C-alpha cells in the first residue's frame, strides 16, 4: 500500500464529566439555588488527537484515571465527546467488558446468538461460526445449560470467543486480557496476533508493560486526559514509568509527612544520600549504563545515637518488583555503633541488568530488622537495553548455525 489508510481518526476530542452530588428530585428542588455548587467538572480527556492506521496495533497506557477507558469508549461510540469529533469506519468490536449482554437465565447457546447480534452479526453469520465459538471457548456440552451455572472462567471464555469471532475490523480491548487463567490468556494473545496478521486494527488498553511491548507497534501514553507520548513502544513505557515514579515520590512524601515515630531507635541513623558511580568513580547521573559496567553504590549515613545497625540497598523495577538486594549483614561487615558519619560502599562488578529503569532505595535497620531509616527512592538507573534478548538481566549473547550431520549407522 502506497498511502497509509486510516481506520479511525480522533480530532481534538475533549470529554467533560459533571459530577453531581445530588440525585433525587427532592435534592434538586431543595437545593435548586445552590445546585451549581454541588456540581464539579472533571475533564477526563482534553484535546486528544490520534489517528489509527489500518492494521496497526496500538497500546494505550497510562496510570489509573488517566482517561484510557474514556478514550476507548469515545472511539467506540459509547459516550459522546464534549467537543471534537471521532471519525471511524469498518466494523468495531469493543471488548470493554466480556459478557456484558449475557443473560444469566438463558442457555449458553441463546447467549451466543444474543451477544453476536449485539456485536452486529446476523443470525446466518453466527450460524456459520457457531461451532468455532464453542470450540474456542472450550465450553463443550455445557453450551445448552443456563449461563448462571457457568464458572466465571467459562463465562469469560464464551464471551471472548463470541467477540473474536465477530469479524471486527477494529478491536477495542480494555484490560479484559487480565482475566482468565494463563492458558486462556495465551489463547487470547495468540488470537490477537492472528488478528494482526489478518490486517485488523487493535487498540489495546493494558497495565502490563510487558504485554504492550509484546504485541504493540506503537504506544499512546495518556496522563490526566492528555497525550504525553505517541510513538515508539520503548519510549512510551519509559514515559509511563517516569509518571509512576513521580506519583510514587509524591505518595512517599505525603506518607512521610504523617508518619509517627514507631521504634525508639527511629532517627538514630539517617541516610543522607546514596551515590552511584562507575568503577572509576564517575557519577552515573542520567546516563545509560552499558552492559558490563562496574557499579559502586555508596550509602552516606550518619549515626546520631549509639545503635547496632545494618544498612543496605534494593534495586526495584518501576512496578515495585525486587531485582536485587544487598546489605552489610550479607557481606559480613560489622558497622560501628558509635555516632559519626559513615560512607558504606558496595561494589558490583560487571553488572548486566536488562531492565531499562531500576529504582535504587537504601535503608538501615537494627539487628532485629526494625527499620530505622529509609531513603526511597534514593536514585534511579537506566540500563541500556539488551540488543537481542529481553528480561531482567542481559548477556552478551551470540547465536550460530551449523548443519546437523545425521548420525550414519
Amino acid at each position, binding site marked *: *500500500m502506497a498511502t497509509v*489508510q*486510516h*481506520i479511525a*481518526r480522533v480530532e481534538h476530542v475533549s470529554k467533560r*464529566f459533571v459530577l453531581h452530588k445530588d*440525585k*433525587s*428530585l427532592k435534592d*434538586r428542588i431543595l437545593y435548586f439555588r445552590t445546585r451549581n455548587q454541588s456540581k464539579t467538572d472533571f475533564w477526563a480527556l482534553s484535546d486528544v488527537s490520534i489517528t489509527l492506521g*489500518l*492494521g496497526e496495533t496500538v497500546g494505550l497506557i497510562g496510570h489509573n484515571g488517566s482517561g484510557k477507558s474514556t478514550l476507548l*469508549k*469515545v*472511539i*467506540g*461510540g*459509547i*459516550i*459522546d*465527546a*464534549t*467537543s471534537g*469529533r*471521532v*471519525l*471511524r*469506519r*469498518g466494523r*468495531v468490536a*469493543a471488548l*470493554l*467488558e466480556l459478557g*456484558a*449482554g449475557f*443473560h444469566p*437465565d*438463558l442457555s449458553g447457546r*441463546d447467549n451466543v*446468538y*444474543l451477544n453476536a*447480534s*449485539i*456485536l*452486529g452479526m*446476523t*443470525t446466518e453469520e453466527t450460524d456459520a461460526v457457531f461451532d468455532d465459538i464453542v470450540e474456542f471457548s472450550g465450553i463443550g456440552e455445557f453450551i445448552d445449560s*443456563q449461563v448462571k451455572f457457568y464458572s466465571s472462567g467459562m463465562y469469560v471464555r464464551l464471551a471472548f470467543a463470541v467477540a473474536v469471532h465477530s469479524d471486527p*475490523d477494529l478491536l477495542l480491548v480494555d484490560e479484559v486480557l487480565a482475566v482468565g487463567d494463563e492458558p486462556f490468556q495465551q489463547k487470547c494473545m495468540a488470537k490477537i496476533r*492472528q488478528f494482526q*496478521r*489478518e*490486517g*485488523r486494527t487493535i487498540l489495546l488498553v493494558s497495565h502490563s508493560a510487558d504485554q504492550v511491548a509484546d504485541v504493540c507497534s506503537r504506544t499512546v501514553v495518556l496522563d490526566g486526559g492528555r497525550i504525553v507520548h505517541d510513538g515508539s513502544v520503548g519510549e512510551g513505557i519509559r514515559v509511563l514509568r517516569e509518571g509512576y515514579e513521580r506519583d510514587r515520590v509524591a505518595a512517599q512524601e505525603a506518607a512521610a509527612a504523617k508518619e509517627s515515630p514507631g521504634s525508639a531507635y527511629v532517627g538514630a541513623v539517617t541516610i543522607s544520600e546514596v551515590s552511584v558511580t562507575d568503577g572509576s568513580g564517575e557519577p552515573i547521573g542520567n546516563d545509560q549504563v552499558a552492559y558490563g559496567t562496574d557499579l559502586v553504590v555508596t550509602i552516606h549515613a550518619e549515626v546520631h545515637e549509639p545503635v547496632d545497625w545494618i544498612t543496605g540497598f534494593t534495586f526495584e523495577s518501576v512496578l515495585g518488583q525486587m531485582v536485587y538486594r544487598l546489605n552489610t549483614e550479607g557481606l559480613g561487615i560489622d558497622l560501628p555503633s558509635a555516632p559519626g558519619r559513615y560512607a558504606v560502599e558496595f561494589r558490583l562488578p560487571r553488572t548486566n541488568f536488562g531492565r531499562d529503569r531500576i529504582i535504587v532505595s537504601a535503608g538501615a535497620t537494627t539487628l532485629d530488622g526494625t527499620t530505622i531509616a529509609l531513603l526511597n527512592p534514593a536514585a534511579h538507573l537506566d540500563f541500556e537495553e539488551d540488543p537481542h534478548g529481553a528480561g531482567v538481566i542481559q548477556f552478551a549473547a551470540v547465536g550460530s548455525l551449523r548443519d546437523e550431520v545425521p548420525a550414519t549407522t
Partner: protein
Amino acid sequence: MGSAATSAVTQRVIDEPLREVGRVNGRGRSTWSAVREILAYRQLLGRLVSRELRAKYKNSSLGVVWSLMRPLAQLIIYYVAIGQFLGAARSIPDFAVFVFTGLTVWGLYSEIVNAGTTSIVGNAGLIKKVYLPREIFPLASVGGALFNFLVQFAILVAATFVLGRPPFHVDVLYVPLSIAIIVVLATGIALVLSALNVFLRDVEHLVEILLLILFWASPIVYSAGFVHGAIGGTWLEELYFANPVTLAVLGMQKAMWVAGSEDPTQYWPDFLWLRMLIALAVSFVFLWIGQRVFSRLQSNFAQEL
C-alpha cells in the same frame, strides 16, 4: 489465514468512507437516520424481545400463563366489586367481556409505559459497554408488551365465541386502529420517560402512580354512558373524550363488545372514527417528539448510569 484473507479484510475497510461516530452534541441526528439504524439492528431487537420473554418464564412451571393471571384477577375483582356490588353490570350487558376488553387495551398501554420507562436503566450493563442504538431497549419492551397483549387478546376473542357474540361485523376494523393508537402513543411516552429515568430515578415511581390514576380516566370498568350522563355537554366531557387512550379503549369496545355496540341504549361519542384518526395523528407527533427528546438525552446515558 493467508494473504487472501488479509487483503479482503483491509479492502473491506478501505471501501467504506470515514464516518463521524455518535450523535454529536447540539445537533441530534435526524429521526430518519435513527429509524434506519434501528432497522439495521432489527434482528437484535427480536432477540432482545425473546430474551425478555424467555428469561421471564424460564424457571416457572406455568410459564406464560402467569402473564394472564393479572388481567384475570383484575377481571374478577372489577366484575364482582364494580359490576355486581356497585351495580354497573345492570346497565352494561356482557359486563365481563366489556371489562376484559378495556383491561386488554389498558394492559398493553400500561405495560409499554411501565416496562419502557425502566428499560434503559435495566440495561445499564449493556449501554455502558457496547454501542447500540439505544432506542432499541424501549422498543424491546414494546415487543414484549405486544406479545402479552396478543395472548390476552386471543383469550378475549375466544371468550366472545364462547358467549355466542363473536365480533363478526364491520366495526372489527376499529381493532387495528385502536392498537395503533396505543402502540404509537405509548412508545413515544416510553421513549421520553426511559431517558428521563436515567437522570431522575423518581420517574419510574411517579409513572406507577400516574398509571394507577389514569386507569380510571378511561371507560374501562364503567361505560362511557356514565361519563356522558355526569358531565355531558361540558368542556370536561370534551377533554375526557380527547384522551387518545380513552378513544382506543372505546374503539376496541366497539369492535369486541358486540352486546354493547348493538345496544341502542349505550352511549358512543360522535365521529369515533374521525376522533381516533386524529388521535393516531397526534400520537405520531408524540412519537416523533419522543424520539427527538430521546436522541438529545441519550448521549449522556453511558456516563449517568
